[in-house]
């Protein structure tokens, strides 16, 4: 893409920034496993920009979906539009995903720890929980077996915790080699996208490290909103802002701003 024109701070929302970051991490031709919300927008944007040959899979059974209307549910009839196949869960989560054919999986998290382990089940003590969250769904399956994982979540200190209330899905567990030791097939989390920054994983320790801060966000702001020792490199670049073209397409995909958010940041 040449002659890119970048949008300025105030011209886009943080959710738009997150969707753009997600889209840029999908390569052309990849098999992408997504849920609803921002991951769906990211995958749809990637297909309309640099990755037209990406194949989008939704766990309810939609394979190589080309939906033109935004879906509310993972099993939404809208996802059947122009799809290569509509089958079922064992096909998507079993044969495709566990069978090793999914390149990248997108997941969300209510809590994440420094190794990228994820909680989507309970807030509070297991014996006496404060909030019961939706549970794994296909999340644990995706994180267990996709070749790589992108986590998309909003950034609050209470979500980036030293110790999870419940470990629903495996990140890098307790460090290097742990996934292999436990028999997990996929490579685990590679990227965490939030409304403040992008984070990756340190090669040696498999702990979360800061990769880039979004325009207008400071490193201190990120550090203040993480409950564990975040690895911060000496030089932290700014995230490449959304282009006007990316924003135009995103707003075309989500005209009612169901997932893009209302406020401009």
């Amino acid at each position, binding site marked *: 893409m040449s002659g890119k024109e970048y949008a300025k701070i105030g011209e886009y929302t943080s959710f738009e920034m997150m969707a753009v970051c997600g889209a840029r991490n999908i390569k052309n031709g990849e098999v992408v496993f997504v849920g609803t919300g921002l991951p769906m927008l990211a995958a749809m944007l990637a297909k309309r920009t640099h990755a037209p040959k990406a194949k989008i899979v939704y766990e309810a059974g939609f394979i190589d979906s080309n939906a033109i209307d935004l879906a509310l549910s993972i099993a939404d009839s809208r996802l059947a539009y122009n799809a290569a196949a509509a089958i079922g869960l064992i096909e998507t989560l079993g044969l495709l995903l566990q069978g090793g054919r999914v390149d990248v999986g997108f997941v969300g998290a209510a809590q994440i720890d420094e190794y990228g382990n994820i909680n989507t089940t309970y807030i509070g003590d297991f014996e006496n929980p404060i909030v019961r969250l939706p549970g794994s769904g296909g999340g644990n399956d995706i994180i267990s*077996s996709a070749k790589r994982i992108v986590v998309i979540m909003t950034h609050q200190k209470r979500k980036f915790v030293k110790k999870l209330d419940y470990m*629903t899905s495996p990140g890098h567990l307790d460090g290097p080699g742990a996934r292999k030791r436990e028999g997990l097939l996929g490579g685990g989390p590679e990227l965490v996208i939030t409304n403040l920054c992008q984070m990756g994983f340190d090669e040696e320790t498999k702990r979360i490290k800061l990769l880039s801060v979004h325009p207008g966000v400071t490193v201190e702001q990120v550090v203040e909103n993480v409950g564990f020792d975040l690895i911060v490199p000496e030089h932290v670049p700014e995230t490449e802002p959304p282009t006007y073209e990316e924003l135009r397409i995103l707003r075309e995909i989500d005209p009612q701003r169901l997932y893009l958010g209302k406020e401009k940041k």
Partner: protein
Amino acid sequence: MVEPEIEDKRITLKEAVKLIPDGAELFWGGFGFQRPPMAFAHELVRRGKRNLHIYTCGSEIDVDILAGARVVSKFELAFFAIEGIGLCPNIQRRIKDGSVQIEDYTNLAMALRFLGGALGVPFMPIKSMLGTDLIRKYRFRKNKAKVIECPFTGEKVCLVPSVRPDFSIVHVQRVDMEGNAQIDGVVGEDSEGAKAGKKAIVLAEEIVNSAMIRMKPDSTVIPNIYVDYVVECPWGSYPMMVYNYYDYDLGHIRLYYTQCKTEEGWEKYCEEYITGVENHMEFLKKIGIERLIKLRAKKPFGY
């Protein structure tokens, strides 16, 4: 040649629900917003069923109603929420007051548990759940999952127990009176789930002539051999969706979500839309024909 008589497995929704004794274990069909047996859930509430044990992958308002009305006390599942809207409001309160317990698995694990039950094997191997609290923590199923080393390769693998519930409840697009069920669009885990139960009850938007099914046998997902009872139940997944038949009613879903955040609100909803109406037809009349017609699938989209 003598034409063989086609067996008639049709019963009414009321009769179908009468078959379910208190304490029964059910496979619960539908996935997310797609084809949940909503009318069946309403009728279970009307008949005051108690202590049911439900197995499913991911369900939404349907299971929240069953928890709210204290019909179900145990769930084994992977996911429940009202997608795009929020958490299931009634289940939150029932967990807090101790009347509902949830055993957590993953979607693939539940689907494989149904496949295992249908196949007649006691467990299924899976490469999910490994290394997490899904294996370490349990509520009521002490032998929830087991990690073993594969006897052939030595790699670690998780085993999950197969399920053979007393009844399988599924809602589909079309069935004939002898129980050949056809599903349009995604199947979710309903193919395996319908075949895992000791008895299967198929609810359908339409009961069609057997000749129509047999002209397109490749569309049959659940053949008659698995099916014990058939119930005609148009708009049976409302306010959720049935591919090729109707879209979800977002207004009603939001009303449910907002109102059921409090116990009083839920009681009012239950009285107004479930226990206060005689049956499914009366419920549909209450929703109103204009509202329903607006939701009909617009061809060729299927929604």
